[in-house]
Structures are given as structure tokens and as C-alpha cells.
């Protein structure tokens, strides 16, 4: 097929399916985008290693399912329970990784007043370290003499590892000619709920006010008694929690992960954050959903191999017309 032959028939005949699955994918993008957008809002820093925070979440999900004895036959209520526990564990693990990242890769630099670009380099370094540690986990456990105990968890460290079961989908209700499945619904609702909670937390709680204050003016915030180190930690913690939840939802949909799975998703999530207006929580949601849906429509039109090209071209077009993103930058600007 010629690359520019637009396949409108395919787009229109599968319109509702493409839209619903695009929304589900976009919801995952949006949740990871929150981590980028919050850190950017507070520190003006591209947290390049956030993709690895997400990747650790996917492995936490996978290993929890292994640990709880998930097999190919696990289904129904047992599976739901397993995945709920997995989501909690993944959120904790991702949050811990994010906090570690802040402690090791950023705080020493902030203390020394390093140039912005050096913080990016530190983040890139941390990203390599985190993903390679996961990719070399079999070597590391062998070196520690633990390989026998953990072989199920660490074997095939550089391969794609999947959940042991195929998650059965149930068709719930039709939209157009597509039957929305339970997984679509769970992913979208779960993501929306988490984002609603985060949004309310940042807007209404005392800690959230601290975040907004630091984002708006770090010096004045410090003079008013806001502990900016705590605020930065809290930002990373919240970003990590969201990435962990996103990781479980991703595993629910995709079912498999790899040590470098975070990278491309991270790039997409960051694109979504910029598209929606970086530093803006609702912008991340809008950006993520728009990106997910646009990718699906675009790849239906011009072929799936052009999916990523569609995403980046859309980003450039949006930035041309709205240079600060769809909703504008605004974590700092309090809307009471």
C-alpha cells in the first residue's frame, strides 16, 4: 500500500472500537504523564527516568501475580483479587523507586545549584541504571547467590515476560458496532478515578496547596514556611503512585513487559503532558486521551507502522496553534 493512501473505510467502519481502545490506551498515557507534568511544574525538570518508574511497576504487578500463585487457569474472582493486590504493590514499588530517584539523582544536584541540563543528564543516567538493573537481574541474583530461589522471577531478564493467564474479556454493552469489554471499562474508570482523586488532593488539601505554592514561586513559598524538599518528595511520591497504578492497568491490557518497556511509553506520556500543557494536571488527562485516540485513528488511516509519526506530528501541530498546550501551563496558578 502506498504510505499516503488514506484508508477512510477502515476508520469509519471501526470508528467506535478505535475510539474506545484509544481512550483506554490514552488513560494509561495520561496517568504516566501526570508524573512528568507534576515534576516539571515544581522543578522545571524533564524527569527522564519516570518511564523506568513505570517499568518497575509493571514488574511489580507481574511478580505479585507469580508470588500469589497465578496460573493459566486463574480467573474470575481470584484473578480480580490478585490484580487488586498487584496494583497496590505496584503503586508502592513505583512510589519507592520514584523517591529513591529523587534522593539519588536530583537532590544532590539541586543542593549544588547545578545547571538544568545537568539534571537532565543525571536523569538519563538514572534511567539507564534502572532499566539495565532490571535487564541484568539474573546476573545480579547469581552474583548474590540467590538464583535458585528466584529463578522464576529473574530468568529471561532480557526477554519479554508475560502474565501466566490470558485475561478473559467479557463484552458488556455495545457502542456503535463495538462491544465495550470489561477491561476497557476497568482501565478507563480506574484511571479517571485515580486522576480525580489526585486532582482533588492537589486542589483541596494542605499538602496540595504546598505543591501549588512551590510551583508558582519557590522562593516566596519557602518564605511562607513551605518545606520545599518535602514538597518535591511528595511530587515524586504522587507521580510514582500514579505510574504504579498505570503499570497494572497496562499489564491488564497488554499482559507482558520487558526491561525496556518503559522507554517508548515514557516518550508518549511526555508528549501527552506537553500536548495538554505541561504542569497542568487536567492538561495531562486531556493530552493523554487525545493522544491515545489520535494514534488509533491515525494508524487506522495511514497504517499502524506510522502510529508514532502521527503522535509527533499532532504534537507539532498543536504546539503551533497553542504554544503552551491544549489547556495551557498551570500547576502554579491556583484556581480556588
Amino acid at each position, binding site marked *: 500500500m502506498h*504510505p499516503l493512501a488514506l484508508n477512510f473505510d477502515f476508520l469509519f467502519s471501526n470508528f467506535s472500537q478505535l475510539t474506545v481502545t484509544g481512550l483506554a490506551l490514552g488513560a494509561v498515557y495520561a496517568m504516566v504523564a501526570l508524573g512528568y507534568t507534576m515534576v*516539571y511544574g515544581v522543578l*522545571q525538570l*524533564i524527569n527522564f527516568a519516570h518511564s523506568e518508574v513505570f517499568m518497575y511497576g509493571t514488574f511489580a504487578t507481574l511478580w505479585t501475580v507469580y508470588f500469589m500463585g497465578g496460573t493459566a487457569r486463574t480467573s474470575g474472582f481470584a484473578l480480580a483479587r490478585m490484580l487488586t493486590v498487584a496494583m497496590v504493590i505496584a503503586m508502592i514499588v513505583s512510589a519507592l523507586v520514584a523517591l529513591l530517584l529523587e534522593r*539519588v*539523582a536530583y537532590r*544532590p*544536584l539541586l543542593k*549544588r*545549584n*547545578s*545547571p538544568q*541540563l*545537568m*539534571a*537532565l*543528564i*543525571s536523569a*538519563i*543516567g*538514572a*534511567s*539507564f*541504571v534502572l532499566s*539495565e*538493573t532490571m535487564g*541484568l537481574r539474573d*546476573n545480579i541474583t547469581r552474583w548474590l547467590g540467590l538464583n535458585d530461589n528466584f529463578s522464576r522471577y529473574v530468568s529471561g531478564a532480557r526477554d519479554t515476560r508475560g502474565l501466566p493467564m490470558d485475561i478473559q474479556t467479557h463484552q458488556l454493552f455495545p457502542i456503535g458496532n463495538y462491544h465495550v469489554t470489561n477491561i476497557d471499562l476497568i482501565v478507563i474508570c480506574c484511571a479517571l478515578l485515580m486522576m480525580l482523586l489526585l486532582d482533588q488532593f492537589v486542589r483541596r488539601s494542605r499538602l496540595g496547596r504546598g505543591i501549588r505554592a512551590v510551583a508558582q514561586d519557590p522562593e516566596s513559598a519557602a518564605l511562607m514556611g513551605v518545606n520545599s524538599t518535602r514538597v518535591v518528595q511528595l511530587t515524586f511520591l504522587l507521580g510514582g503512585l500514579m505510574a504504579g497504578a498505570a503499570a497494572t492497568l497496562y499489564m491488564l491490557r497488554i499482559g507482558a513487559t520487558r526491561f525496556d518497556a518503559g*522507554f517508548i511509553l515514557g*516518550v508518549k506520556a*511526555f*508528549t501527552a503532558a*506537553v500536548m495538554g500543557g*505541561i504542569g497542568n494536571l487536567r492538561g495531562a488527562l486531556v493530552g493523554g486521551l487525545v493522544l491515545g485516540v489520535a494514534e488509533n485513528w491515525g494508524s487506522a488511516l495511514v*497504517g499502524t*507502522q*506510522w502510529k*508514532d*509519526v502521527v*503522535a*509527533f*506530528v499532532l*504534537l*507539532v501541530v498543536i*504546539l*503551533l496553534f497553542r*504554544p*503552551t498546550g491544549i489547556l495551557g501551563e498551570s500547576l502554579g496558578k491556583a484556581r480556588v
Partner: protein
Amino acid sequence: MSRLGLPTMTLPPQLRGRPAKAVGVAVLVLFLYALPLLDLPIVTTPDSDFGGVLYTMATYVLVALGLNIVIGYAGLLDLGYVGFYAIGAYVTAVLGVQHGHWPYLLTIPVAVAVTMLSGVILGAPTLRVRGDYLAIVTLGFGEIIRLSAKNSDWLGGARGIQNVPKPPSVHLFDVPHLKWENGTVLVDVTNKTQAFVFGFVDYVPYYWMALTVVFIVLIADMLIKSSRVGRAWEATREDEDVAEVMGVPTFRYKLLAFAMGAFVGGLSGSISAAGANFIYPDSYQITVSVIFVAAVVIGGQGNRWGVMLGAALVVYLPERFRGLEEYRILMFGIALMLLATFRPQGLLPPRVTRRAKALERDLEDLETGEEPQEVTS
């Protein structure tokens, strides 16, 4: 004419009227040309062909010089520089073998022209958005270039393009390599480099070609940096609004920096394609861009010697310690983090940074009421 036999005008200002320094530079240049033949112990890479490693280092040094214009001088974060590198390589390959039979040397001007044009096309709309967004937009550009090459059969698809043309070979003379055995140096007559034969095994002539281009670009870089354009870039980087008020058309200068960076990137890509024999899209991934940026920033953005050192190290260290193959990226990551923490200005910070630091120290002393120290530099 100077004693190097070059017209005085081509000498960088630092060397004019300083014969001792000029001789020192000449010796260093000769040493760099002779490096692959010397086969020095410890320095040379045991597990991969040293000539090939040096050739790659030279192309990366070239990339770093180009990216330094964009990041170091103009202060624009470009995460998609590999896109220009890829365009340069692809133009050479497409004209030379895929859709034509151009000789290699003729493809270079077209390659750099196309790359420069693509730099302007990318820069014109995106340089108007805020600086921080440029990172993601350029990253997207790099990916678009790679995916376009991968998905279009006209450009060879995922398999890439084989038999990229090579520079014309002129067999003038043979140069023997040296051999080191237990502290004695022997001339190894069995291992000779045929001077200026661009073949498949010996990469030393490619290295010489790349090194020559590095020197040309370096001299151009010195001239530009110390000109009006260089000062305009510096002003734009330090404070765009002030620069604009002072009458510097900042957008035009940023675009110029972007185009010049693209020019050098394309040149480097074209040179790297000559020795590569075949090129394929997946060798131009985002990670390559990231490594380019890392080379510039760890070397000391804004200092041409620093970025050259950074680029050389980024290629050399992983090749030197190939025994640790599996752990290379892990080590690289740790090195980046340590460096960011302990040398936040880069290995060789630019003089401006050093001056600014001395000034800052002075101000601090004034504030604390102590006697200001003499500024040494």
C-alpha cells in the same frame, strides 16, 4: 605565510604570532594522525579494531562540535540530533547506490544541503515555542526520520541500504604499523596501511578523512564563535529578552544555530556512512541522540575542547572495556550520574562559567563582609 605553510588568515587568532604554540599544535595534529599506527599499549582497544574505533570517535567528535553550536552556544536543547545524522547518511546512500550512481564526494554537498534545509524546516515553526518544549519536539523529529526511513521502501525499508559508496581510493604509499613487545618497539612490516585506499578492512584512511574534516570544522567553529554571530548566540542564550531589546534578532540567530548544527550533523552522518558499508534505520534510535547530548553536556557545553573530549570518551570507554560488554550501559548510566553530581559544569567548563563563578564568589565574600579575594582568572 606562517611556518606551517598555511596562509596566516586560516590560523585561529590564538596562534597568530606565537610560533612555539603553533609548533606544539602541529606536533599534536601529527600525533593524532599517527595514533592508529602507533598501536600504543594500554591506549589501544584490545577487543575491537583501533582504527575503526578512532574513526567512530572522529565522527562523534564532529557531531559534538555541531551539537555544541545548538546546545552550548545557542542554548537550545535538541534531543533529535540523530535525525540530521541519519539524513546525512541516507542522502549519501540514496544518491550513491539506491537511486543513482553518484561518486561519494559529490553526495556530501547535497547531503549537507538537504540536512541544513531540514534543520530550517524543523526550526522555523518550533523555535518559536518555549525552549523546554523544543526537547520533545526535536525528539519527535528524530523518531519521524527513523520511522519514515523504516517504513518506506524507497529508502530501503527496515533492511536499510547496502553498498554505500566509498571515497575514491588513491594508492600512494604504504605505512607500516608499530608493534610493542615487552617495552621494545618494532616496525611491523606485515601490517601496513595502504595510504588512501578506502576498503573494507582497514579503517585508518577513513579515520584520516574524518579527522581532517574535524579540523576544518574546528577552525570554522573558532572563527564563528569569536565573530558577531557567536556573540549574538551568547547573548540569546543568557537572556533572550535582553538580547532582543539590545537589537539582536534572536529568532533568526537561533534558526542559524539550528541550521549550522544540522549542517555539521549531516556532514558527520555522511562521513559515518562511508565506512559503514551499509546503513539501516534502527541504528538511528533516540538513544543515539541521548548519547550525543550526553557527550556534549558531560564534556562541558559551550567549550569546544570539552565537548570533543566528551564525545571521544563516550565512544572510547565502552570500546576499551568491551570485556564488560553486558554491563556497558549500566556503567555508562552510573558514570553520567556521578559526573552530574560531582562535575555539574562538565569535564571542561567553558571560560564564561569559570569567570561567572569567580564573580559569584566575590559577591558572596562582599555579602559576608570579608575581604574580597583577588580574581585570578
